[in-house]
């Protein structure tokens, strides 16, 4: 008799997660690169964390990015606008053994779902939250979002927006989030590295992906991602390494008073020893907040894992409580409960 090999006994590959559905994002959309990176990361997550392919769940809200679950061969659910975080939480709390990935955009997460965003950050369930930030509403064809720069003209702001935008990193950290990272859709290597770190972090891992909408907000991140401009306008943070950037790593960040400052190595006697060393693990969020806030032209935008602090997850707290209650509760079954307290017998 022929030996039957269970598919999951074989090492997972990218192919295991590719869907047979036609991907309908616009040609040139940053989402394609993100999808590829996620498909590449899942086998690594499976390998390193012991998840089988049926234990991945991809959850989304509404928007271009939120079509994501249909393009992955996993368990998936495409929810309603802004509420993916709640959907993901219900899944994770019900079955903590699942690797839950949540896909959302800046409209979905920062506007209609803003409330859920801050609460998932503070509650800290072990969910990997990928937020595609293209600073525009794409699916509804070009209205401003809560991350659109002030003054930008869009279909609903013909005179330019009048509103101060959110910085998602500030919001995540301000909401007492324990993990925040930022990547760009033009750097697949960094995306895969950071997505894997997000998965390995036991808690809510929020990753902002600076993603380009080729139709309605093309080149919105060009300064940070441009072939020539990126060296002066992005800094890739690595734990334990000095915060250096520039084409030749000739620039760095120092703390001057209570503020960060960009310095040049060799100028004014500055050496590598003066440069801040990145520590994403400090509970104190002061420096993390400043790093998340940095933006060109004064500062480079911070990429990589900005904050990663260990903390009990929501599902661990709940299920530990379940186990404890099983030990101490006087009720072993529902009959016990129904018969508890004041009862009386009628003969």
């Amino acid at each position, binding site marked *: 008799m022929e030996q039957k090999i269970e598919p999951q006994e074989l090492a997972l590959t990218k192919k295991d997660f590719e869907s047979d*559905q036609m991907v309908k994002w616009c040609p040139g959309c940053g989402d394609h690169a993100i999808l590829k990176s996620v498909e590449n990361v899942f086998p690594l997550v499976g390998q390193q964390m012991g998840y089988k392919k*049926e234990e991945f769940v991809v959850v989304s809200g509404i928007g271009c990015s939120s079509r994501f679950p249909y393009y992955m061969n996993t368990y998936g659910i495409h929810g309603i606008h802004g509420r993916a975080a709640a959907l993901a939480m219900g899944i994770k709390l019900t079955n903590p053994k699942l690797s839950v990935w949540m896909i959302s955009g800046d409209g979905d997460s920062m506007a209609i779902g803003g409330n859920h965003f801050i609460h998932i950050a503070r509650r800290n369930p072990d969910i990997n939250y990928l937020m595609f930030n293209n600073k525009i509403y794409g699916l509804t064809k070009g209205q401003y979002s809560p991350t659109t720069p002030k003054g930008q003209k869009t279909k609903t702001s013909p005179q330019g927006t009048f509103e101060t935008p959110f910085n998602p990193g500030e919001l995540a950290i301000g909401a007492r989030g324990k993990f925040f990272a930022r990547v760009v859709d033009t750097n697949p290597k960094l995306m895969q590295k950071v997505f894997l770190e997000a998965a390995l972090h036991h808690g809510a891992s929020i990753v902002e992906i600076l993603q380009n909408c080729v139709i309605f907000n093309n080149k919105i991140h060009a300064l940070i991602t441009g072939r020539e401009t990126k060296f002066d306008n992005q800094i890739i943070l690595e734990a334990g390494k000095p915060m250096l950037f520039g084409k030749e790593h000739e620039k760095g960040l120092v703390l001057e008073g209570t503020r960060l400052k960009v310095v040049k190595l060799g100028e004014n006697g500055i050496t590598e020893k003066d440069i801040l060393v990145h520590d994403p693990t400090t509970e104190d969020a002061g420096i993390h907040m400043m790093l998340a806030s940095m933006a060109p032209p004064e500062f480079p935008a911070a990429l990589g894992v900005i904050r990663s602090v260990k903390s009990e997850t929501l599902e661990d707290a709940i299920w530990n409580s379940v186990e404890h209650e099983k030990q101490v509760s006087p009720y072993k079954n529902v009959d016990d409960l129904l018969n508890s307290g004041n009862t*009386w017998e009628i003969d």
Partner: protein
Amino acid sequence: MTTKKDKVVELEEAVVRFAGDSGDGMQLTGNLFSDSTAFAGNDFATFPDFPSEIRAPQGTVSGVSGFQIHFGHKNIHTTGDLADVLVAMNPASLKANLKWIKKDAIIIVDIDAFTEKNLTKAGWESNPLEDNTLTGHLVIQAPLSNMTRESVKDLDLDNKSALKSKNMFALGIIFYLFNRDYKKTFSFFETKFKKNPIVVEANKKVLEAGYNYAETLEAFTNTYRIEKASLTKGRYRNVTGNLATAWGLLAASERSGRHIYLGSYPITPATDILQELAKHKQFNCVTQQAEDEIAGVVSTIGGSFAGALAITSTSGPGLSLKSEAIGLAVMTELPMVIVDVQRGGPSTGLPTKSEQSDLMQALYGRNGEAPAIVMAATSATDAFYTAYEAAKLAMEHMTPVILLTDGSIGNGSEVFKIPHVADLPSINPPLAKANDPDYKPYKRDADKLSRLWAIPGTPGLRHRLGGLEKEDITGNVSQDPLNHQKMTDLRQEKVMRVANYIPELKVEGDEEGDVLVVGWGSTHGVLITAVEEMRAEGKSISLAQFKHIMPLPKNVHEVFSKFKKIIVCEINMGQFVNYLRMTHPEFKYEQYNKVQGLPFMVSELKTKFDTLLNA
């Protein structure tokens, strides 16, 4: 003076109403009297009547909190129209409750609270104890506050703490009046105030003092006794509808083997369900107090996708917020129970008062063609069975179920015959089998039309669900016109076929006659009381109380066609009657409606039905 026992009169039933400031402990007093009523073997039903403010201005009518109990020797279906005994702790509670008592009711007041200032606050122009306002009543003017202080003077208590137990003095008087053993209540104090022995002592002393005061007073010409009710053999307890709902769901979880995920946001009068389930983690019952109503229901859909018995509990305004998400549950055909403990609306409305006005919202309050099962519990104890059935139908038919209860049964309590969980019907969710080569997300059961529940983590069943229309069988996203028609028809038909799995509509009384009274949900108690009283008077009248609303039982036409007249009674402006006019247009319907934040009274119903019979 020698103590004497007053003449004991046997009664069939009685209604007692406790009323005081919302900080006076009237709910506790009422609950302790209910416990004592249970020990006495009577059947009973209770209803708390309190303002939505936690501590409305002291001494004002708007701050009055009440608790009514109806108990008796026969079966008790209602919380009683008018009270036989009123305890009024201050002028405001007397003012607020005079219209809810019988013409010859006994009134017990705290005379110490009838000061000039309190009378003015309550809006009395002259002292009702001194003018002829209370003519016809036996009024016991007891110096409750002073005697309470006096009875605890040996204990180390300040004035404020001492007065806290004055409600127990009142309870002592009522215990005497109904020949109850006050010592049975002592154990309650010992448990409740375990950490504070002085408070235990104070409450015991005050309760005893109240009892002795009534005994020595010679003001009552009679005391009363009510024979044990003729309840069937078994073990009994007292439950509120909210408690019964929570327990019914726990029982369904145990029988189905699906652990509970409850995502809810606190809202009056539904919060008790969340609070109760939060206590029972030992049954793998996971509860999450969500950041809002929407997160509550959406996380519940997540829980359902992941394989839980998924529940969200709310009241009318919360159901409005949940409607988009319920549509997602309809589209993804995931099971969940949405409990709506209805209250007076629209908007914030009357948060602590009861109404049946969310029916249309439950049936139709979603975008698109979005059918869901709608059911309604008919009493506090029935909430246990209806919640159990709601969970069973949701899981077995893979659909959201909206379970309507309301403030009157949610907060009201009744005597509950404790069932055995093993005796309840089995629950068999249609779980997809691992590595089933034929699994397709929207392949359906031939009879129920339900799809399979394929739970993440199960090998070989990976699939995607979502709010976009899906292709029949495969579940791929589809915009095909004929497919959308087909899926819309299937979702509707799936819910309609639930009619094959629910009991038929029953008639209480003769199955044919002059008048059929029709009600749904919580009004059963008062409607059956009115109908039974009129039948005892020889009138041709019967009752059909609906519990299943979407779909309706299959025999509605057959039942309705045997009566000359049909009158539909509901605590709204006619939502169910209009639904019947739509689903069964072949009949002519009379209607009786009321939205005053109050239940029907037996007397008003009888008057209305008499008019109909004589017309």
